[in-house]
């Protein structure tokens, strides 16, 4: 039966959001109506989610992946490129994650973005549907070509959604930054795909895998190919040094951050590497790069997260950090562990973002300095946020614990000792910075400015100024409302739990996070590797000590935050400056690109235009001179006839 076949179900899940996007996009009345468009999109996504569940159930225990392709570009020897779906356990579980988070985020957004004008809401849902389609296209792609097309579509959607409030200059700039930074990696991916096609003659993942298994892929130059593919993955999955776009992407609406910049899109790079692990396995050097860089990213991002006061930025850096974990596991050779962490992280990070969104929605500020004792006023949000935080910190019985422990075990088993300890340190920092946020925002008294955070005065002041400016912006432009402006002034005192439309998705995610955690804590997944027994206790110990430090510093105030700041002054300074990466990029941009552009501009203005001007001036001048030949006097024409006769005779004379 066709309907029950996993391929058809996956195809339905893929095409439903595409249909939603096309219909919302093609029918302007529907798009401008806002709320109906939203419910239409949600209905399609819900149907896609159901299809994804069915497809997932159908592929469990499936030995062979289902490979349904149609010829797209015909070539001399069979089809040059095909499109279709590649359905296996991996892709359907990813499909499940994508549709689940997309559905919850879309439901959540109806409340979160309720202040938006109707046409903007319609645009938002059209883009959400397009994003869901593109992401599922990446997930289900049977060929690298289709994957790349959807990959780029995902990037476009991400850019458009980050820039959803495009009148806000920061958002517009962040959108462009995200686009260009990921594009830098995507160029690598494209080159890698083309090189791989040249080496093997196929884009098809299944065929490639068979070739790899048979050892028929030429090893010469394969490192370059895998490294190029890794570049694309690093751009999308925000690996050092291409991670700079992700924190800035938080300028977008919080549900977008939850869906795209936490749960799904950023994991596309990890997913791609998981999909192609058999190819990467052939190039151990590149695998080592992946592992080391993953661990480095995890550690650096964790350090950066410690000095952030913006709750979304803390989460963004933690996302970067967790992506580093996944990459490290893949680099260590155990893609399964990385993929597992991807799935659990998708759940609890979406939960955290949506919870943060609820807080921001209530308080009207991103800054933890403006929060405090929210647990009393927003109990539901506090509980689910705590669940997410415990998951992220890696506390037993929560989703993140199992997967993070797997990742650590995988890295150790892969023989990467230094990255392992880096990741362990990052795990400690993760617990610390997450609970810092929890204590500052949900517990404790409302902090005074002096002991706010590790950051100190300067940053707080700039934030206050920033909020003041946004407030002014909001009053000046009443049609435009966003995250920060529409509730500014409410403050902590008037904060309350969000309506069910928003808390519902939070509870769903929290339940799933708990369920996964409990299920796998009781029934540990059979590991592909043998991790030493001390890994699990040390991971737990590290997480708990991080929590303890945060508790002592921000709740009990037994340890002064300022003292901590002084103790780690150099690191703190570097972290506040984001390790000067943005400055370096800016300097490179200024020195290389702008100089180059200026040179091009000069060439265009003076050389190209100059040549044209000279030629045109010559033409004019020559015309002016030749014009004088036409005297209008009969005698001169007679003379010219004589000259012509002379020339003719001379010619005939020579010819004779």
């Amino acid at each position, binding site marked *: 039966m066709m309907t029950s076949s996993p391929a058809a179900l996956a195809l339905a899940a893929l095409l439903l959001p595409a249909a939603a996007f096309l219909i919302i996009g093609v029918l302007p009345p529907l798009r401008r109506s806002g709320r109906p468009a939203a419910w239409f999109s949600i209905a399609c996504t819900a149907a896609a989610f159901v299809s994804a569940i069915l497809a997932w159930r159908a592929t469990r225990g499936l030995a062979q992946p289902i490979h349904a392709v149609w010829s797209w570009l015909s070539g001399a020897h069979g089809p040059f490129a095909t499109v279709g779906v590649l359905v296996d356990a991996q892709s359907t579980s990813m499909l499940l994650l994508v549709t689940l988070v997309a559905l919850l985020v879309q439901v959540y957004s109806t409340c979160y973005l309720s202040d938006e004008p109707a046409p903007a809401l319609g645009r938002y849902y059209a883009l959400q549907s397009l994003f869901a389609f593109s992401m599922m296209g990446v997930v289900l792609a049977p060929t690298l070509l289709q994957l790349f097309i959807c990959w780029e579509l995902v990037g476009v959607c991400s850019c458009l959604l980050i820039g959803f409030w495009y009148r806000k200059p920061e958002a517009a700039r962040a959108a462009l930054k995200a686009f260009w930074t990921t594009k830098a990696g995507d160029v690598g991916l494209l080159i890698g795909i083309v090189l791989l096609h040249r080496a093997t003659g196929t884009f098809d993942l299944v065929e490639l895998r068979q070739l790899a298994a048979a050892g028929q892929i030429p090893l010469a130059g394969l490192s370059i190919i895998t490294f190029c593919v890794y570049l694309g993955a690093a751009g999308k999955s925000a690996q050092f040094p291409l991670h700079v776009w992700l924190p800035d992407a938080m300028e977008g609406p919080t549900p977008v951050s939850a869906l795209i910049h936490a749960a799904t899109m950023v994991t596309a790079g990890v997913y791609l590497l998981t999909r192609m692990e058999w190819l990467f396995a052939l190039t151990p050097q590149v695998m080592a790069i992946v592992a080391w860089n993953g661990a480095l990213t995890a550690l650096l991002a964790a350090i950066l997260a410690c000095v952030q006061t913006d709750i979304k930025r803390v989460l963004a850096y933690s996302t970067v950090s967790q992506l580093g974990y996944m990459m490290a596991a893949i680099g260590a050779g155990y893609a399964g562990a990385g993929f597992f962490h991807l799935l659990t992280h998708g759940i609890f990070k979406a939960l955290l973002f949506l919870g943060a969104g609820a807080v921001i929605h209530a308080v009207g500020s991103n800054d933890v300095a403006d929060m405090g004792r929210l647990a009393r006023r927003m109990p539901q949000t506090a509980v689910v946020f705590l669940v997410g935080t415990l998951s992220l910190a890696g506390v037993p019985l929560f989703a993140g614990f199992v997967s993070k422990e797997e990742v650590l075990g995988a890295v150790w088993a892969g023989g990467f000792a230094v990255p392992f300890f880096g990741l362990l340190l990052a795990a400690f920092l993760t617990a610390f910075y997450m609970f810092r946020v929890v204590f500052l925002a949900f517990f404790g008294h409302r902090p005074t400015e002096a002991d706010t955070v590790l950051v100190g005065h300067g940053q707080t002041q700039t934030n206050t100024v920033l909020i003041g400016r946004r407030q002014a912006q909001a009053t000046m432009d009443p049609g435009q409302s966003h995250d920060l402006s529409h509730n500014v002034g409410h403050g902590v005192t008037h904060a309350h739990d969000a309506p069910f439309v928003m808390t519902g998705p939070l509870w769903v995610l929290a339940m799933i996070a708990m369920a996964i955690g409990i299920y796998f804590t009781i029934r540990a997944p059979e590991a592909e590797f043998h991790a030493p027994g001390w890994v699990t206790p040390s991971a737990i110990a590290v997480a708990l000590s991080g929590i303890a430090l945060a508790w002592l510093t921000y709740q009990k105030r037994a340890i002064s935050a300022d003292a901590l700041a002084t103790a780690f002054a150099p690191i703190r300074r570097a972290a506040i400056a984001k390790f000067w990466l943005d400055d370096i990029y800016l300097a490179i941009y200024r020195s290389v690109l702008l100089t180059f552009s200026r040179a091009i501009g000069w060439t265009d203005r003076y050389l190209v235009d100059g040549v044209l001007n000279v030629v045109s001036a010559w033409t004019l001048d020559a015309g002016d001179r030749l014009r004088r030949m*036409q*005297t*209008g*006097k*009969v*005698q001169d*024409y*007679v*003379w010219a006839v*004589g000259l012509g006769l002379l020339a003719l005779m001379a010619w005939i004379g020579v010819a004779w």
Partner: protein
Amino acid sequence: MGLQAYLTLAAIVFCLGLFGTVTRRNTVGILLGIELMLNAVNINFVAFSRFRGIETGMVFTLFAICITVAEVALGLAIVILLFRTRRSAMADHIDWLKG
């Protein structure tokens, strides 16, 4: 004398006429140059006619002479008209052919 001598003579006269036509400032002078050129052509006609023993060339000479007369009459009429309108007979001053 051979045909060559006549043709050479005609060539000389023709080139003299051309020279006059091109260089003269006065429109009447230009007409005189044209007359010389026509005359050279007539010499050629008659010479060829005689040396080939065909009288057709001579008939054409007659025609040419008659047409020349008509041409001179018209040309002089135009010259007088120019005098009237421009108060000048200088070909230099007549550049109506210029667009």
